């Protein structure tokens, strides 16, 4: 009896633990293990190379370019999505048919598959026949190369990501705004608070949970961007849109350098891990929860 009493809780959590270990913990450790080998995915022998893969990675100018690309992409996507979503939410946070319609329209990209979105935007951004260049032409400006020139390709991908993420972000902000009781605004107006003061001193701090949630979700998402790149640019032109996950995919499943790809995966893991730790540190200290 006593042993069963002791074992019962463990037996209850066992299924979850087993699934979690099998599909989350084990792959992570296996990836770290593989990152120390040279292996081509099919050969029965793996050659131990120590930290050679990491050395190669960090001296590879392409990889450095990939890290820079990923950072720029993440920075732009996160700031633009969160910032624009906040502005939109402030505008849409009222009840009318029009505002409800706009809210729904902005949200719709969120439920469309990224593959469809990538194809759609490839067509929109086509330098010759694309809708965007046609509109720009009507406005009297010269055509843009969008995805086909290294100077604009990364920004073009950012536009797609922002377009896709905006609706969800706006929705989270609207939910945050609606959880603020209306008498706070009234108390502020009786306290002679100017609109900007009300926003910066009261509303923004009260939205901090939403802001931090979105920033971290967007950050992790952007660091792992893959579909749009695989479909729209394949990392080109001249490596200008190659990002971390696409790089891992190429080395792992096209060049079959599993050890090398795993090493890049470990670096991604470390980066996302650090971001998450920072996030939780900030969460506990700076974010207001009721």
């Amino acid at each position, binding site marked *: 009896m006593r042993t069963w009493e002791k074992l019962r809780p463990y037996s209850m959590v066992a299924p979850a633990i087993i699934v979690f270990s099998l599909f989350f913990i084990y792959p992570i450790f296996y990836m770290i293990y593989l990152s120390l080998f040279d292996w081509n995915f099919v050969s029965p022998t793996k050659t131990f190379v120590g930290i050679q893969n990491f050395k190669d990675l960090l001296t590879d100018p392409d990889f450095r370019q990939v890290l820079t690309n990923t950072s720029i992409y993440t920075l732009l996507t996160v700031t633009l999505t969160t910032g624009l979503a906040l502005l939109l939410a402030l505008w849409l946070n009222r009840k009318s048919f029009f505002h409800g319609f706009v809210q729904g329209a902005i949200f719709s990209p969120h439920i469309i598959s990224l593959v469809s979105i990538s194809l759609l935007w490839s067509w929109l951004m086509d330098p010759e026949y694309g809708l965007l260049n046609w509109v720009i032409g009507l406005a009297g400006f010269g055509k843009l190369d969008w995805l086909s020139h290294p100077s604009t390709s990364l920004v073009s991908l950012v536009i797609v990501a922002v377009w896709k993420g905006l609706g969800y972000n706006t929705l989270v902000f609207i939910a945050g705004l609606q959880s603020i*009781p209306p*008498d706070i605004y*009234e*108390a*502020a*107006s*009786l*306290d*002679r608070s100017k609109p900007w003061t009300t926003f910066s001193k009261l509303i923004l701090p*009260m939205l901090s949970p939403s802001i931090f949630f979105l920033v971290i979700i967007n950050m992790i998402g952007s660091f792992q961007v893959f579909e749009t790149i695989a479909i729209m640019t394949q990392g080109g032109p001249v490596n200008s849109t190659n990002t971390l996950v696409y790089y891992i995919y190429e080395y792992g499943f096209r060049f079959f350098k599993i050890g090398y790809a795993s090493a890049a995966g470990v670096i991604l893991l470390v980066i996302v891990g650090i971001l998450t730790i920072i996030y939780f540190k900030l969460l506990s200290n700076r974010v207001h929860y009721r």
Partner: protein
Amino acid sequence: MAKIELKHISKKFKDETVIEDLNLTIKDGSFTVLVGPSGCGKSTTLRMVAGLEKQTGGEIWIDDECVNDTPPGLRDVAMVFQNYALYPTMSVRGNIEFGLKNRGIAKREREKLIADISEIVGLTPHLNKKPQNLSGGQRQRVALARAMVKQPKVFILDEPLSNLDAKLRNQMRTELIQLHKRLGTTFVYVTHDQVEAMSMGDEIVVMNKGVIQQADTPMKLYHDPANRFTAEFIGTPAMNMMNGQDLQGIEIRSAAAVGHVGFRPEQALIGAGAEIEGYEIEGEILTRESLGAENIYQIQSRTGVFFVKTFLAPLETAARVKVTIPYGQLYYFGLNGERLRGVEASSKRLAAAGGR
């Protein structure tokens, strides 16, 4: 300090008229309580004075100045909200300081004002805490301090005690009365609780369906209600009301038709002797509530259920009792609920015996 005048105020929400042609003068330095059932327009009236709601028609004057187009912050009113409406991201100090900062008051003076106020309301040890770490009573004090520190002309309080437990509510009630004495500022207070209104206000405005029923001192309201609504609204238990047609053995001499006759539960006498002349009702006691100093009986009579309240008397144990209400304690109301004055009544018994 300020006098507030509402002139021909009306308020519509879309198609629904909440208040129509409301006229009211709130005396300078008074503790005026707006009281009425929920949805009677008392909170709306209050919010219009504060400027949080714009009236559809009419004028609001504070201190001989029309404030129709003055934004809330510049009306020199301070408000205490039902849910306190404290700024949750700011400390107690920040909450109190916010209004002062927006007025451009220098830091040294701010510090002094905050220190004084928090001493008065007993918040000094809690100045650096966030509102969510305070109890209900402490939050209430922060809301009060935030309002007081601005030294406004008018204090507006919208059901500020309704979120507190009974004991704390009583305590805050006396504190508010003392605070009003000390500051001498005009207080406008909204509540649905007539006990709160009676105990705090020196001027009570009874409202129903957007119309002022009576504006008077508590004593006048109790002893001299202007209509059936006020009579039934003030007092616990409420005034007993009988349909004029159901009365028997009473002769009423009145210039106008009598719709209802009422009496206060505390004026009725159980088992009174024959020497007291009054209207008599027999009935069966349904429930007895013994509160120590007073007992409340619910009595089923031929004309309906009514209440009787006795003070410092032993609990009545008989199942059936005779209740006498002295004629002088009867209130008469017309068919439209208006109070009828100068009505006389006497027993009909002799006339009945002789006639039939």
